[in-house]
């Protein structure tokens, strides 16, 4: 097992595999299938300052080798998460990466403060794909200045490391990565979903009530791999890679692209055991290859 250990800021992971935010709730459902202690970490479902119902249904639609979702950040609000969800998670030794969302800088700051002070999470993951209501709906993640400002403000209130989760819906993701790095980010998560749409030809209307949704799953993997490699070339920040992982080969591909750990989202819906399966298969693959450490895999990708 030691060969799989990864130490990232705030996250001492016994292996590099975690479920991705929003695809694993707060762990309760998957704990019925396996012991969450096996996971490298757990990225929690997004928390916002106030409780949110989220969008109307349908909230999901299937697309070729992918799916759209527009859950709309449904969550009970950060206070309830800290008081009702995190205590249950404390029974596990697995570090928690708390996903933070909001529609204005103040929301993020409030939420981050509460989570950081809770003493129950190991690091924060800023979901900067949300539209900034004050700036007229431009997503924080698409404007380097907004992204940097948000990072700075959250870093100022957080005692724990802050990962910024980048949106792929941008012309140049490296610019955003560099902006949040300068602003003090401790790491990057990438990628979030690509904005997509599916129209029901029987009704003529978008299949998702919210009209657009976020595209995830294998379909987006080539875009994730490209963006991670682009960003890895320009920054030393640790990268948690995600986007379409369903197999151990995919996990390895992310390491070769430059990721330091990976998150698995959509695949949990297909196979609830996917995370423990990938952990086991990764270990077997490394053994078969004679690799002693994940560094050996990364070196093969050209990263020392």
């Amino acid at each position, binding site marked *: 097992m030691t060969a799989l250990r990864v130490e990232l800021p705030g996250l001492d992971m016994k292996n590099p595999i975690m479920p991705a935010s929003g695809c694993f709730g707060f762990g309760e*459902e*998957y704990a019925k299938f396996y012991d969450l202690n096996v996971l490298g970490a757990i990225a929690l479902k997004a928390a916002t300052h106030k409780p949110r*119902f989220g969008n109307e249904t349908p909230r999901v639609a299937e697309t070729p080798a992918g799916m759209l979702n527009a859950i709309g950040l449904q969550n009970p609000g950060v206070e309830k998460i800290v008081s009702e969800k995190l205590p249950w998670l404390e029974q596990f030794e697995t570090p928690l990466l708390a996903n933070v969302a909001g529609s204005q800088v103040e929301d993020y700051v409030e939420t981050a403060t509460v989570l950081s002070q809770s003493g129950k999470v190991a690091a924060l993951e800023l979901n900067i794909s949300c539209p900034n209501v004050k700036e007229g709906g431009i997503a924080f993640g698409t404007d380097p200045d907004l992204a940097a400002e948000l990072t700075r403000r959250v870093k100022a209130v957080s005692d724990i490391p802050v990962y910024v989760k980048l949106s792929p819906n941008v012309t140049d993701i490296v610019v955003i990565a560099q902006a949040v790095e300068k602003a003090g980010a401790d790491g990057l998560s990438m990628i979030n979903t690509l904005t997509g749409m599916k129209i029901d030809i029987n009704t003529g209307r978008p299949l998702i009530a919210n009209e657009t949704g976020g595209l995830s799953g294998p379909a987006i993997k080539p875009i994730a791999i490209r963006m991670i490699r682009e960003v890895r070339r320009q920054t030393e920040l640790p990268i948690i890679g995600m986007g379409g992982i369903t197999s151990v080969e995919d996990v390895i591909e992310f390491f070769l692209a430059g990721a330091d750990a990976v998150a698995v989202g959509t695949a949990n819906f*297909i*196979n609830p055991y996917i995370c423990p399966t990938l952990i086991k298969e990764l270990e077997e693959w490394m053994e078969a290859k004679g690799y002693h450490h994940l560094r050996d895999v990364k070196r093969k990708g050209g990263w020392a």
Partner: protein
Amino acid sequence: MKKEHMTVGAIREIAHRIYEMKLFGTIATEVKMPGQFLHILPSHQLQPLLRRPISISHVNQEEKELTIVFRREGEGTTLLANKTPGDTVDVLGPLGNGFQVEEVSAGDSVLIVGGGVGVPPLYDLARALKEREANVTTVLGFENKEAMFYEKAFQSFGEVFVSTVDGSIGTKGFVTDVIQEKNISFDRLYACGPVPMLKALETNYPEAVGSLSLEIRMGCGIGACFACVCHVQGDASGHDYRKVCSDGPVFPWREVVL
């Protein structure tokens, strides 16, 4: 709740594009109540990607046998319909909360209303209610005669009436037309079918006791992704919700907003 490769037994087309399939495996032994469902992976390739929710129609615990009935609709159900006996399918189940038959007493008049592929989960419900010595009446609605199935099967539990949209068999119109026409009265009402049907029932019988089963697009099927939530009736906060996959798919009348 378990993920397992179940073995396909007999499969046959019992009506136009409607297939009945037997599945064997230990999931069958875990079924607790009628109305629970399976989340079935139609393919091991990456396309189609997601599982499909399909209700359990009938359980034979000793034989570890489940019966499902589904309509060949899109890619997933077409792949399923093309399975042959001996094939295996990756199944997650049993999922969700079904119909609480304990609330029914001997002698109760129970009306069961099914529309289209909403009919299958009602089969084991009717059987259970009959066993509890309720007086079961069933009303089934279909598009047309070709799409009709299980009307004979339900006759072993009580009287059965049928409606078809085009009138090709039974009463022309909707299930609500049959109930009115035949002047059916009941102590308890159980229903599964398209939302407009459920809404019409809720409107016509605002005091109904019993429950309904909902269909909605799902992701995980186990309560983790929040794809399948619905609003709660009379919730002032606007934040209250139920997950169809894990709180439902069966809900008491007037619990959730249709």
